[in-house]
């Protein structure tokens, strides 16, 4: 594991997980008027743990990489406050709020990553 991996890997992985969540929320909003559509969400913790465990446990050259657990993608159905007449469980206001929050979280991760990169740059320049 080189210096770039150790400095950036956590935030790079969380950026992937965050962008997956933004996509799932976009799917919910796109299907806000689809009969019988069930809203879904991703549990960030689970996705991130799956990604993190994989790297944490291969610290030695002879360690084998863990197989990726396909079943544990962290995807879950949302429990709605009220189910619509047509069986749709998308509650638009909640999805909008979650989408805004997910976008902010994504931007926060981008900021962390940016800070890390500029830190590395400073170290490389020796300023």
């Amino acid at each position, binding site marked *: 594991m080189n210096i770039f991996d150790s400095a950036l890997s956590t935030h790079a992985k969380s950026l992937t997980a965050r962008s*997956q969540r933004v996509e799932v929320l976009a799917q919910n*909003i*796109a299907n806000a008027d689809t009969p019988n559509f069930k809203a879904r969400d991703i549990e960030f913790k689970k996705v991130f743990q799956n990604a993190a465990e994989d790297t944490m446990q291969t610290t030695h050259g002879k360690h084998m990489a863990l197989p990726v657990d396909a079943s544990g993608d962290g995807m879950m159905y949302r429990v709605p406050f009220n189910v619509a007449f047509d069986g749709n469980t998308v509650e638009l206001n909640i999805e909008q709020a979650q989408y805004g929050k997910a976008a902010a979280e994504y931007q926060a991760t981008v900021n962390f990553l940016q800070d890390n*990169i500029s830190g590395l740059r400073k170290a490389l320049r020796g300023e």
Partner: protein
Amino acid sequence: MALDNIFGIGGSALNAQTVRMNAVASNLANAGTVAGSDAEAFRGKRAVFKAILDDQLNGNSNENNKGGVKVTEITDDPSPIKRMHDPGNPQADKDGYVYLSNVNEMTEMVEMMAANRSYQNNVEVINTARQLMMRTIDIIKS
């Protein structure tokens, strides 16, 4: 990349809402039409939405809009056709009746507003995804 797919997903939703809005426009345009028989009378049109699932990826949808939405069919409004006695109308049948369309203007206006709002929502989703992408590209700048 997951953010890429949002453009496909949002785009499919914009498309579906446009079809819905088109159906409303057609219904409103034909709200006042009359016909000579019950079968010929204009019936309101409704778009039926369906989520694009993994196993339904075919020619006109691709990996990019998986999880989006598509219009599967346009159905007719099942509400009954009203008939009106108007012997002077050239469309009238032999008993002097004309058959009105079953479009309710109020329902159509509500449907139009709902489609409009959904369209706006999806535009906003795409806009946000675009901003996130631009921010991510900007990482390498600082």
